[in-house]
């Protein structure tokens, strides 16, 4: 695993898998969007609003997965000082925040017709909102220092603190109030629980796959531009250094 700490090594692999990830992402979206938004049957209780759920659940899945990725990479960065782990964590954070916001917004849009209100202080909405604040705090802390390395480390520590706290917050809020329906996908020995019909599960899984691939494709792009920006910065710095050495009067 340590050989991936080298940006060149890491990017060689990342660039090699990027076309595949991007291609699968496009294919999955091409399948998921029409099936989920047009051809899948409306729910017998929720009607057409069930289609919001495809976006909502996929965003919620990503916001949690990305937090896990940030926490794991922060740990790797703090323990082994892997520069790539830090880059992955920092590049993921804004995406996690956006998916978190998307989950909240789609949840509210779904709540209005279903519950008759945009917002209820139920356990899952509340802990998602808190997770959103944790994301914002992470991004703000990472950018708050003149010395970017200081921001990297402080944010990494915060991510680990958050990963200890997320379950505590979740359990507290759950205890505090529960109104939201229990989770609909339950993995069991027979595979997936049958409380949801397969006509709804298939588009949901397609959409979740598409979202996940979208995240990985975007991550590679962000890492690539981040490394290029660092290269440009270094080239500029050495250029300036060369100039001032040649013309000390300036």
């Amino acid at each position, binding site marked *: 695993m340590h050989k991936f700490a080298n940006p060149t090594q890491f990017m060689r692999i990342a660039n090699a898998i990027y076309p595949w990830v991007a291609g699968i992402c496009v294919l999955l979206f091409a399948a998921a969007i029409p099936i989920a938004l047009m051809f899948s049957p409306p729910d017998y209780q929720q009607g057409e609003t069930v289609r919001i759920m495809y976006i909502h659940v996929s965003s919620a899945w990503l916001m949690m997965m990305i937090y896990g990725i940030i926490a794991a990479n922060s740990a790797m960065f703090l323990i082994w000082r892997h520069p790539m782990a830090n880059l992955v964590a920092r590049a993921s954070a804004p995406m996690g925040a956006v998916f978190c916001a998307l989950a909240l917004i789609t949840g509210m849009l779904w709540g209005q017709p279903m519950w008759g209100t945009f917002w209820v202080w139920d356990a899952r909405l509340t802990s998602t909102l808190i997770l959103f604040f944790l994301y914002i*705090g992470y991004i703000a*802390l990472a950018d708050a*220092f003149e010395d970017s390395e200081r921001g990297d480390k*402080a944010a990494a520590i915060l991510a680990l603190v958050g990963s*200890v706290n997320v379950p505590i917050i979740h359990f507290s*809020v759950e205890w505090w109030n529960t109104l939201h329906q229990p989770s609909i996908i339950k993995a069991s020995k027979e595979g997936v629980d049958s409380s949801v019909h397969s006509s709804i599960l298939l588009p949901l899984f397609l959409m979740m796959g598409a979202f996940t691939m979208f995240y990985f494709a975007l991550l590679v792009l962000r890492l690539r531009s981040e490394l290029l920006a660092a290269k440009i910065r270094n080239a500029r710095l050495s250029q300036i250094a060369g100039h001032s050495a040649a013309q000390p009067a300036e």
Partner: protein
Amino acid sequence: MSVFTALLSRDLKLALRQSADSLTVIAFFAIATVLFPFGVGPEAEVLSRIAAGVVWVAALLAALLSLDRVFTVDFEDGTLDQLLLNGQSMTLVVLAKVIAHWLTTGVPLIIMSPVLAVTLQLPAEGYGTLVLALLLGTPTVSLVGALGAALVLGARRGGVLLSLLVLPLYIPVLIFGTAAVEAALTGMPSAPMLSILGGFALIAVTLCPFGTAAALRQAAE
């Protein structure tokens, strides 16, 4: 250990000589609480319903205000670097500073809270539990707060940032702190909530000092 006691007595002495700092926090606590009757109206039944929550929220905000002085002065005048160079266990150093913070902010807040609860018409059954809940909850507030304060050392807009980092982490304490008082008011046993608050304090005291020490080490680098 001698560093621990020396630091603790030094911080307490400093707090005593600059007692205006602690007093300002208490004054803020009082003002923030007193604003609520103006906001929601003076009816006794509304106020007594929200009293515990208001006291808790105001106490958290007041504690938040006091957090930036836990490490900032030592960070700016170089004391922190000296402590790090000393080869002392940073975890102990952090623990000493947190205890000093709790004694100079947490304890005054706890002492003040029944007085403010009176103005909010908290029913008589609630006082004991409120004080007990604050007693068990404020150590967590100081421990988590110190971690946040160490993370934002030297940051731009540190104060605002600190509230953004720390307040979400205070939510569990707030939930169980108010739930304990609520239980006491409705005649339910409040011991479960108080036990959970104590549990949070134990988790915080075992984990936070290490995180804070790590944050301090990288702040001084």
